[in-house]
């Protein structure tokens, strides 16, 4: 039975046994390929609702590929394909009938480099909402823009210059604008791919504190090279590494305090103590 995700979601009024229970999204036995190259091998990774899960690991271990599989961003790479399942609301998002655009409305993304639209701060929020079906009045749209900017801890800094270009903001502010844009469409999950790598330490800490606040309402998955950041900000940590065939795989997954104080795997220990990677 092929359903669009939208149809599927509207067909369930309450959490059914087929949904993912306490998990917002869940990879099961997932293999990801670029052509014949296996980039990620046999990953089973359950992501808890309204928690922050960090994906860490050395360069080339498939962290970003893994992250992008959670909202079908890999579809944009022609040679990419997958095996296994990514379950969201009990539905495999890779099923042929599922609309990837609809998936991305529920599972938003914030990228490494802040990428606001070359439009006003106001329009950065409003435009995304409109194309995702927002049909409210002007004042309702104003409310949405304000709410989103407040949620992204940016409102006080921009409320007097909403018509200025989003590109006029500092890097940290631009990234928070992108977060505001992502949450304006009320996603369930926000994927963050190295969201602070282009930011200075102060802007980084601001985003991290913002993530903690956002985790009260949203599920967040973050990929980061900065394991201190993973330690500071996340509830769960998934450590990826790669095999001799260069395929990335999940070596250890657990509560962040456990991973950073007594990892069970020697490779994890070596990585978090800076002895490898």
């Amino acid at each position: 039975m092929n359903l669009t995700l939208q149809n599927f979601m509207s067909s369930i009024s309450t959490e059914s046994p087929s949904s993912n229970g306490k998990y917002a999204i869940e990879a099961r036995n997932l293999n990801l390929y670029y052509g014949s190259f296996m980039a990620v091998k046999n990953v089973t990774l359950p992501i808890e609702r309204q928690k922050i899960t960090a994906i860490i690991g050395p360069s080339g271990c498939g962290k970003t590929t893994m992250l992008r599989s959670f909202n079908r961003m890999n579809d944009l790479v022609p040679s990419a394909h997958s095996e296994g399942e990514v379950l969201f609301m009990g539905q495999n998002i890779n099923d042929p009938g599922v609309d990837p655009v609809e998936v991305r409305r529920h599972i938003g993304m914030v990228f490494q480099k802040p990428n606001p639209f070359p439009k006003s701060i106001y329009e950065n929020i409003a435009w995304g909402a409109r194309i995702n079906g927002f049909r409210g009045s002007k004042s309702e749209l104003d409310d949405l823009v304000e709410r989103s900017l407040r949620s992204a801890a940016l409102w006080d800094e921009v409320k007097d210059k909403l018509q200025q270009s989003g590109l006029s903001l500092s890097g940290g502010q631009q990234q928070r604008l992108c977060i505001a844009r992502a949450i304006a469409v009320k996603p369930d999950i926000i994927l963050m791919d190295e969201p602070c790598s282009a930011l200075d330490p102060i802007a980084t800490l601001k985003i991290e504190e913002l993530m903690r606040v956002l985790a009260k309402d949203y599920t967040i998955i973050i990929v980061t090279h900065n394991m201190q950041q993973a330690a500071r900000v996340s509830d769960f940590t998934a450590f990826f590494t790669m095999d001799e065939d260069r395929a990335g795989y999940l070596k250890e997954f657990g509560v962040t305090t456990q991973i950073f104080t007594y990892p069970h795997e020697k490779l994890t220990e070596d990585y978090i103590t800076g002895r490898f990677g």
Partner: protein
Amino acid sequence: MPRETLDAKIRHLIDEILVLDSMIEQTTLDSVDALKRRDTEAARRLYAYDDVVNAKRFEIENDCIATIATQQPVMGKDLRLLASILEIVGELERMGDYAKGIAKICMMIGDEPHVKPLIDIPRMAEISVKMLHRAIGAFVARDVETARSIPQQDDEVDALYNQVYRELVAIILANPSTIDRANHLMWAAHNLERMADRVTNICERTIYVVTGELKEIESSDDEYSKFRE
């Protein structure tokens, strides 16, 4: 720039220190009270309660290590504070062992009458507990002045200890059959004297957190000072 996650974790750790402190204060007073009344039933309960104290200490220690590992307070006051919390929970847990030791002494004495009425030992417990209470308060408030002043009270505890010691030696000399019972009371007094000494260590950590200075607070009646010349 606030670090709300780290600050919240520190606030939680401080709350937990206050919980552990109140456990120690109560168990110390209760142990001495049980000894005074020769209540072996209460002593048994207090002896077993040390497991609860130990578990709380390890819980705080684990939380503190996890906070250091995940929040990385690599510099300054936050790091000094967390390092001091690790030290202080160790001190508190040792004080819990002293209370447990007094409960054990109570069980060992059993129904036998005390060789003297217990007046100075409960007084020692009262002063030690007050010192501890003030020391933890000073730590929480990062109050260096109070922290510096508390160890002077240790002199009172030492004076009471010396008095108890002299009295018990006199009793033993007068009637050697009292040696076991007198010796038990000497241990109880010694435990309380050690407890007050450990309060000084907590005060030193408060000074360290605020000033960065790691230094022993000299006690005015340090009995060994004459050997240092």
